[in-house]
């Protein structure tokens, strides 16, 4: 064991880290409130708010009716007038019921009012497949919101980032959407104590390599890192970048890596077409980094189908460690 390794590393789950961030913010700022369906005594569908109602009471941990459009709109109106609401969608899929308030109102109010208004609302959205919940409870729609000026769209992959991004989102004067992967809620990792902000719009180099750049966020980061480890055993050196933020997107970190490795692969759970991969691919193609490419850019995304119920089909519908590994191998060995 490394003698330098600290022995007092705090370890929390991703869900615990999010809860800790909410508690820190609520202790520090009485204008922070939580809103959402069944976030009170039930503790939230994924138990993220758990016991916060006991600590902060029902006036600050508000169960809403099953009214996504209205609830999100109430959060927008409250943010416009002095509160800092954190609104939990029970599943990110349900944000579609609130698109009007998110896209037409929250995202545009500052601009429409010429900078005279601010909407500091945070939307939390449990996302992703792998739970057997099928087509309406398993989607990854974060790229949709990447298309909307006025929003910020984050995708934490680790407990440390889940906490730091939520605190950063609360400190931000504009609407922020945080897509939390359901399969990550129980994942444990180091989480610093106290308050800290993970910078919004900064990707992070998670593993250095020389043969191929793999850009992945959320749970795909972990699959990409596992694939990179396996590829290393056969002599392929993959560089893995944690995207972290979809809007704003960190051009520089990605471009610098592509200039170094000469190959780019983008891995994401959302449907492949018109997704995060298209944006990143185009960004590279439009830049000087294009001249450094030794192979075509490769996108590995979700299947062109709703998320299926059958577990084998469900697994096959989104990138997995083995598919990432195989795709990287093909790319590096010029088999694409």
């Amino acid at each position: 064991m490394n003698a330098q390794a600290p022995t007092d590393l705090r370890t929390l789950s991703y869900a615990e880290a999010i809860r800790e961030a909410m508690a820190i913010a609520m202790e520090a700022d009485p204008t922070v409130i939580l809103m959402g369906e069944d976030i009170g005594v039930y503790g939230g569908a994924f138990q993220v708010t758990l016991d916060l109602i006991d600590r902060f009471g029902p006036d600050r941990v508000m169960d809403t009716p099953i009214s996504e459009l209205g609830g999100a709109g109430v959060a927008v109106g409250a943010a416009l007038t002095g509160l800092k609401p954190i609104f939990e969608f029970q599943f990110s899929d349900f944000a579609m019921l609130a698109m009007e308030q998110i896209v037409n109102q929250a995202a545009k109010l500052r601009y429409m009012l010429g900078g005279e208004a601010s909407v500091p609302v945070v939307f939390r959205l449990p996302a992703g497949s792998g739970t057997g919940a099928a087509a309406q409870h398993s989607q990854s729609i974060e790229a949709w919101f990447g298309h909307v000026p006025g929003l910020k769209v984050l995708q934490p992959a680790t407990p440390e980032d889940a906490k730091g991004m939520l605190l950063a989102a609360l400190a931000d004067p504009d609407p922020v959407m945080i897509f939390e992967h359901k399969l990550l809620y129980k994942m444990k990792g180091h989480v610093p104590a106290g308050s800290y902000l993970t910078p919004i719009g900064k990707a992070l180099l998670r593993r250095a390599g020389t043969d191929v750049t793999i850009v992945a966020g959320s749970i795909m980061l972990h699959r990409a890192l596992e694939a990179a480890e396996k590829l290393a055993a056969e002599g392929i050196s993959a560089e893995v970048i944690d995207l972290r933020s979809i809007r704003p997107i960190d051009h520089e970190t990605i471009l610098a890596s592509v200039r170094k490795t000469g190959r780019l692969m983008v891995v994401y759970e959302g449907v492949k077409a018109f997704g995060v991969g298209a944006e990143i691919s185009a960004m590279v193609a439009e830049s000087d980094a294009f001249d450094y490419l030794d192979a075509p850019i490769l996108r590995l995304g979700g299947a062109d189908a709703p998320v299926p119920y059958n577990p084998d089909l469900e697994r096959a519908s989104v990138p997995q460690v083995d598919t990432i590994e195989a795709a990287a191998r093909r790319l590096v060995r010029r088999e694409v």
Partner: protein
Amino acid sequence: MTLPDNRPFAIRHFAPAALREALKKMYLIRRFEEGAEDSYMRGLIHGTMHLSIGQEASAMATCMELTDNDKITSTHRGHGHCIAKGAEVGRMFAEFFGKETGYCHGRGGSMHIADVKTGNLGANGIVGGGLPIAVGAALSAKRLGKSDVTVCFFGDGANNEGAFHEALNMAAVWKLPVIFVCENNGYGMSTSTARSTAVTHIADRAAAYAMPGVTVDGNDFSAVAFAMHTAIARARAGEGPSLVENLTYRWRGHSKSDRNRYRSKDEIEDWMTRDPIARFRAELIAHGILDEAGAEAVAAEAIADVQAGIEFARSSTAPSISEVTRYVYAEV
């Protein structure tokens, strides 16, 4: 024994100076709308707009008891609300002309006109868009321990949006200080309430949310002012929301593209005989608040303000093209 005071509510309740100011603002709304229409015809304003000529009593009487701390959310037909809440017509015209001096620095235009400093959180291009936002503003007031109320203007068309149901239900469940003011002008664009709405009176829907609902003659200043007085008192007392339905009529079409094929000339002319400004003016004169000369002076002030406002807008500078993405995010 004293005789009961049978004068209309507004005459009894408001000071003469406030009543004179109300008449002035109603004239200001009418002349503003005409000035905007004229400027549009002359190519000084582009896009489209939704005029509220004929609905001035609804806007003004609703806002009579509101302070700058009280909030309103408005609609696509929101010029009158903006003026009634206290905005300056010069900065409104500047916004319509797309100028940097406009309330939204030329980014919003007619459909997003707002004046946050006087509590107007903005017109809205989405029918029903302001309903949940108003509930959120009322939630802020309650959580922050303020006595402010929020007035949510919406039209008869919005009462068939899902947002109406969700917003009224939440406001009632949480007993929030919000007053939902439906300006029922009979048509959602071309579709009449008779063809679109299952109930005769939109205020009847209040029963579904366990809140008081009242339908009033929206062209009768006193009737609207009294309904609002009652609803605002209830809201400030922490007793929860109310729904007020003002029956009114827009003399002009829905927007600039409207050819009025869905309503008759007779119908329009009939409503024009119920002009809310003429009625209020006659009431003030009848009760000795103003004389004819005083009323004429008020009307003349409105004309002068509108002329000065248009001049201010015309002479203002346009936003810089290089700032097209300014105000998307907060400036750090």
